[in-house]
């Protein structure tokens, strides 16, 4: 069972590597990282902060867009082009196919995050500014944020088109960062129904703000591991639920 899983996972990574979009995105990230160096020339007093904020911010935007593109299009493209017929007709379960594709996706995003991280720290070292634990935490937790977003994209793409899937995933990204506000607003509502709906929405949406440590990185605030572990667990659990939903929907689907 492991061999087909690994074969499909590595194939997903190879697909992204040979896909020009990845190259374009890599070049884009590199360009923006260089641009951040130029930006720092404009600021004198907060040199370290701008460097960290822009660097990790760019990394986040680029990888979030890539995660949405890869996850929301992967299954629908396979179904549309019928490449899937040759794979799911092999002695593997659809659940294995889907989880292996998801793992391949995460491997791609992880490799890109690593490469961008190396570039980022290279830039930090080049300017002789301080490398902090908070920067590592922000970059590491970005991986978990990407995992949650990818799992939503996968779940959507198991039954809808790439467009719908991408729209919902992007919507989930923004709503996920506003989760706290939604909760606050619902608490202030007078109607119990509205309170209930607001809280249900808060729990259903991914709480991406608890995976966002970019502010701490900018202000060099260290985060204890004990505080990170529940956030990581939350991301893994949320992604697992999304993948289970995707597996259930995908397993029942007819491929005409």
């Amino acid at each position, binding site marked *: 069972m492991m061999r087909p899983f690994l074969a499909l996972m590595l*194939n997903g990574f*190879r*697909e992204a590597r040979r896909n020009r979009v990845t190259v374009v995105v890599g070049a884009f990230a590199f360009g923006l990282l260089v641009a951040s160096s130029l930006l720092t020339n404009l600021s004198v007093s907060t040199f370290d902060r701008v460097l960290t904020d822009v660097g990790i911010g760019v990394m986040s935007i680029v990888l979030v867009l890539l995660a949405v593109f890869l996850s929301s299009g992967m299954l629908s493209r396979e179904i549309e082009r019928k*490449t899937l*017929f*040759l794979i*799911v*007709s092999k002695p593997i*379960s659809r659940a294995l196919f889907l989880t292996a594709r998801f793992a391949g996706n995460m491997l791609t995003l992880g490799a890109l995050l690593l490469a961008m991280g190396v570039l980022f720290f290279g830039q930090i070292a080049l300017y002789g500014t301080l490398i902090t634990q908070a920067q590592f935490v922000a970059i590491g937790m970005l991986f978990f944020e990407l995992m949650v977003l990818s799992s939503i994209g996968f779940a959507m793409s198991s039954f809808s088109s790439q467009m719908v899937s991408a729209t919902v995933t992007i919507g989930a990204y923004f709503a996920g960062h506003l989760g706290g506000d939604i909760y606050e607003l619902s608490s202030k509502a007078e109607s119990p129904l509205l309170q209930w709906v607001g809280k249900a929405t808060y729990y259903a949406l991914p709480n991406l703000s608890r995976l966002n440590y970019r502010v701490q990185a900018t202000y060099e605030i260290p985060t204890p591991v004990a505080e990170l572990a529940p956030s990581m667990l939350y991301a893994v659990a949320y992604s697992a639920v999304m993948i289970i939903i995707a597996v259930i929907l995908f397993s029942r689907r*007819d491929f005409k």
Partner: protein
Amino acid sequence: MSAPETLAIETRDLSKTYRLGFWMNKRVLALQGLTLAIQPGQVYGLLGPNGAGKSTTIKILMNLVQATSGLARIFGHEPTAKEARRNVGFLPENPAPYEYLTGEEFVRLAGQLVGMSGHELDQRVKEVLGAVGMSRTAGLQIRRYSKGMVQRIGLAQAIVGRPKLLILDEPTSGLDPVGRREIRDLILQERERGTTVLFCTHIIPDVEALCNRVAVLVNGKLAREGSVQELLTTQVPVVELIIEGLGPDAVRGLGHPLEQVQDLTNRVLVRASDVHVQPLLKSVLGAGGRVAQLQPARFSLEDLFLQAMSEAKHGTVGGEITS
């Protein structure tokens, strides 16, 4: 007494209805009560026009679509079980392998998915690429391949795991005559090895050349089933006559049941069943006509196919649609 051999493929009252439209209120009866029993070692042809239910049958067997009702088994396993597909090689219609891979990489991936690895996989990949005539171009990305080359890679990935059952959906479509011959030879080789082959096509000469047994599907229903020999010999013998001295209307006016009357400029070609020939001859001669030629007509699989279609009253594309 030995135990009965497990059927390679078995379907009983297999049906599939697709629901279409925004409210899912249109129903397409793609397959209606199909019962088949395919013995190991047979080369079995599924014949039928577009929309007859051939591909739907194959997709149910390969767990790509779920049957609405009825039973399907591959070597005794339900299509949803992984075991059902363990010994099966599948080539879909217009196969679409990953275009970013090379032919060799794709066949290797297919081998890995059936559980092969290491030296065995290396050897087997080389072997099947040679068998489908793709050794020299296996290092090119699939996006650079012609349709025929993609079809060959599709076949290579189907046979890489040494399957006991090959399911091929239109395996020779899109191929030039040489390519078609090569694919046919490859299927014959697999038959020699004892592989069971189920293939669906509407290219009748392929069926005649390869199959032991045939099922004709029309409108999602089984219209004919049997060995090629059985199907052809059980037909009512037909005789062809060429008549001179009488026009087509005059021949029709003789009052005998005729299958076909065709004007051939000063001559008329008539097809009639064997039992009606003697009285027809008497009538033709009595009316002043002359029989220039008389010979038994050869009944082909194509005739059988067309007969089955005309019995089903055409209108078969996409299966029966109900609201």
